């Protein structure tokens, strides 16, 4: 039997740790990508994950939500292991996931796309659609357009709006700024931070855009070759050059 180092055990017992990832290994059909990822996220935090192309950031996100199986190690949500849960079960526990490259449902209308997001909550929530429309007015304007024909940036907004429909307690965002016009990038950052303040939602996001990282993140993990190689705290995140340096580890 494997015994965990005392400190990690201790940490995972801590009550305010919502997500505790211990020595996580995962990959694609025998090809290992994540090779021992360890990190914790506390309730209500906004944490960034950065790293070069191809180091495994998206793989980490997919493993957290359950689209890829855990090969070794474990993922604990509020102290309980979720390794054996299917993705939809994890979602039902309040995890919202916005994939890289958006992946909206192309042949469904914008509104229908949003309605699918309700599944996270398991039921429809009164007034939720209007709330989303308030954050992303273009979605209201195009409520009946087929999502596949929306512009790249519009799709990204839709994808974010879609998970918010389910009022998740934790959101995983994979490169949310990709393809979004600068002022909306700022909006998204602002909205996220605002939501985080208002509702205490926890956010884990992968990002390359320094401005967005600075605007949103309270803490930041740096990934390389399938594991976490550094952790940046609030102060370090003030310095563009530090982030820049770590982004290209």
């Amino acid at each position, binding site marked *: 039997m494997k015994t965990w180092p005392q400190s990690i055990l201790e940490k995972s017992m801590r009550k305010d740790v919502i997500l505790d990832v211990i020595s996580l290994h995962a990959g694609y059909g025998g090809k290992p990508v994540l090779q021992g990822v360890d990190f914790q996220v506390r309730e209500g935090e906004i944490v960034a994950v950065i790293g070069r192309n191809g180091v495994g950031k998206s793989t980490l996100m997919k493993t957290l939500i*359950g689209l890829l199986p855990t090969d070794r190690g474990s993922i604990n949500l509020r102290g309980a292991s979720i390794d054996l849960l299917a993705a939809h079960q994890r979602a039902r526990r309040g995890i919202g996931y916005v994939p890289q490259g958006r992946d909206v*449902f192309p*042949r469904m209308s914008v509104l229908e796309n949003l309605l*699918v997001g309700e*599944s996270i909550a398991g039921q429809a929530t009164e007034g939720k659609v209007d709330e989303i429309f308030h954050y992303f007015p273009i979605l209201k304007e195009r409520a009946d357009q087929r999502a596949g*024909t929306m512009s790249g940036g519009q799709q990204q907004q839709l994808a974010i709006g879609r*998970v918010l429909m389910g009022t998740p307690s934790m959101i995983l965002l994979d490169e949310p700024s990709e393809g979004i016009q600068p002022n909306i990038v700022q909006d998204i950052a602002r909205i996220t931070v605002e939501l985080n303040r208002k509702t205490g939602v926890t956010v884990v996001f992968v990002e390359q855009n320094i401005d967005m990282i600075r605007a949103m993140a309270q803490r930041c993990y740096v990934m390389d070759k399938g594991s976490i190689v550094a952790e940046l705290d609030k102060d370090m995140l003030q310095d563009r050059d530090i982030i820049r340096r770590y982004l290209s580890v």
Partner: protein
Amino acid sequence: MEFLYSIFSFLYQFGDAFAFLVLSSCGLAVIFGMMGVINLAHGEFILCGAYVSTSAAHMGLPLPLAIAAGSIAAGIAGMIVELAVIRPLYARPLDTIVATWGISMIVTQGTLIVLGTTMAGSGTPFGSFSVGAYSYSIYRVVLMVMAVVTLAALWLMFTKTRFGILARATIQVPHVAEALGVNTNLIYSLTFGLGAALAGLAGGLYAPTMTLVPTMGASFMVEAFVTVVVGGADIFLGTAPAAVVLGLIKAALTSWKGQFAGQIGLLVAVIIVIRILPRGISGKILKERA
């Protein structure tokens, strides 16, 4: 008066062709349109519906209940098939052609071995009525009504219910739907089951009017495929108009030049329609709308 009689008779023939096209195709359309699976075992679900409902009728169940039983049985069979065979194949839909073809062979021959070469029919209920010089079967009118009811029910189910939205989401981007909390396996199972149940319904409805043999499913296949293709991938926008167009073509050609012309006409219609509307009728409608 004569003129009105012939109008009625044309309408009746059109309705008859329409009903056959709709009922034989909507199960196939649900499975193809929603899941991208070309179900070559469609005819065998029809067979299942026909055999079960006829057996139920022989056991004394009233016809509507017997038909419902056939449809449910086919639906359950569909869910089993989905679980065992179709589910691993969603990532490679073309392979489902081979798999369902295999299933079709197993079921057809299995039925022959277990139940023999034929089953006695239950007889067409309700008798006939006359308009002018012609007499017509009343049951055929029931079939027409059932076709319309089925279409309406499907339309409501897929556009007005949550199930419809989730089902379409699941088919389009399964991993995201799952990550959003949709139990995609359940959705798949229900959708395929629904398609199979609709096939079973067709079997149950037509069973009293047909020869019951293990290969009977085959005689629905051409019409079913043709309707689905002409309709295009979006079953609600496509199937009904396709059945109308094809029903008209078939009724007109058959009364004018006989069954051969009707059959060839259907097939040629496919080739022409696809030439003009490569994505079927619904593809055209969707494009206009977008």
